């Protein structure tokens, strides 16, 4: 487990919900629309303090993981209030102690801005997804617009000390990890995005 990352997010958990008011109201409807596609066995990565549980469709059964035990402590109440069943477990997305091909859906919200080795984390998600399984992501990425990209690079030098990096190429990382991109949608400028990808179904067996 990446101790440095864990400590950073344990510290951030104290003030994490302070920033939720505006974010949830502005992005909540988009997250609900994305998560309405959840089906089957579902893994939610980087559950944080559980703010996104309210965006899940009712009655689902899912495993929600986070690297930070302090985040998960705060998520406990929100998981209990959810109409379905959410199991919370402490895990590092780069080393998941989960069997291959065990989930139909993996959902992430602003996760791969914070994972130190994003391609390694995404490869783990690819491993635990069943063939044909879907990856549903709500993420922020580096802008391809010149001045905005440079601003995000500058801001990252500060933001990475306390929380996320603002200049990740998450769409590129999803492709590097072996997924097939199904949909990419801009939510705010070209920075906040919905990314949907799939793990290729297994090829037909030849006799």
């Amino acid at each position, binding site marked *: 487990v990446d101790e440095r990352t864990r400590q950073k997010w344990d510290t951030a958990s104290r003030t994490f919900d302070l920033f939720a008011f*505006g*974010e949830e109201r*502005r992005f909540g409807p988009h997250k609900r629309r994305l998560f309405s596609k959840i089906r089957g066995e579902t893994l939610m990565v980087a559950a944080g303090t559980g703010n996104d549980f309210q965006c899940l469709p009712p009655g689902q059964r899912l495993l929600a993981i986070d690297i930070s035990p302090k985040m998960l402590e705060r998520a406990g109440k929100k998981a209990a209030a959810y109409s379905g069943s959410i199991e919370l477990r402490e895990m590092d997305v780069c080393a998941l102690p989960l069997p291959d091909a065990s989930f139909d859906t993996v959902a992430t919200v602003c996760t791969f801005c914070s994972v130190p080795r994003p391609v390694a984390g995404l490869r783990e998600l690819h491993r635990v997804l069943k063939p044909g399984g879907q990856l549903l992501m709500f993420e922020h990425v580096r802008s391809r617009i010149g001045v905005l990209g440079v*601003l995000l690079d500058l801001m990252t030098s500060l933001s990475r000390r306390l929380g996320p990096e603002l200049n990740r190429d998450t769409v590129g990382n999803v492709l590097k990890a072996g997924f097939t991109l*199904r949909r*990419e949608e*801009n939510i705010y400028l070209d920075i906040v995005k919905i990314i949907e990808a799939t793990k290729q179904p297994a090829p037909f067996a030849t006799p």
Partner: protein
Amino acid sequence: MYFVIGDYAAGMLIGALTAAGVRAILWPGIDMVIAMLLGMALGMVIAMLLGFLLSPLLGMFYTMIPAMLIGMWGGMLFGMRDAMEANSSSLGSATAVGALFGTILVLAIKTYDRILQGSVVDIGD
């Protein structure tokens, strides 16, 4: 409506405070290149602080992106203006122009956001 008013109010506030901050530290006759660079640096610091304070109410990205652009461009322009003593002689008129600049930039970002919104890739289910 809360967010529409909030976004414009935040832009006006950041623009006005950037203009006031630049007016406070620069003086007429300072080299224009130095005025631009100092204005830009100060504008970005003010924008970052204010953006961070306002982001719990308006959302981190919706606050920080306009704030940084207003601080960077506004700081440069206000710095050049104050170095040249080009109009806006009173602090009141300088901050009013700053607020107007902030409003226009928020409008421009909102317009650009609308243009960019939607699917970039969609190969269906």
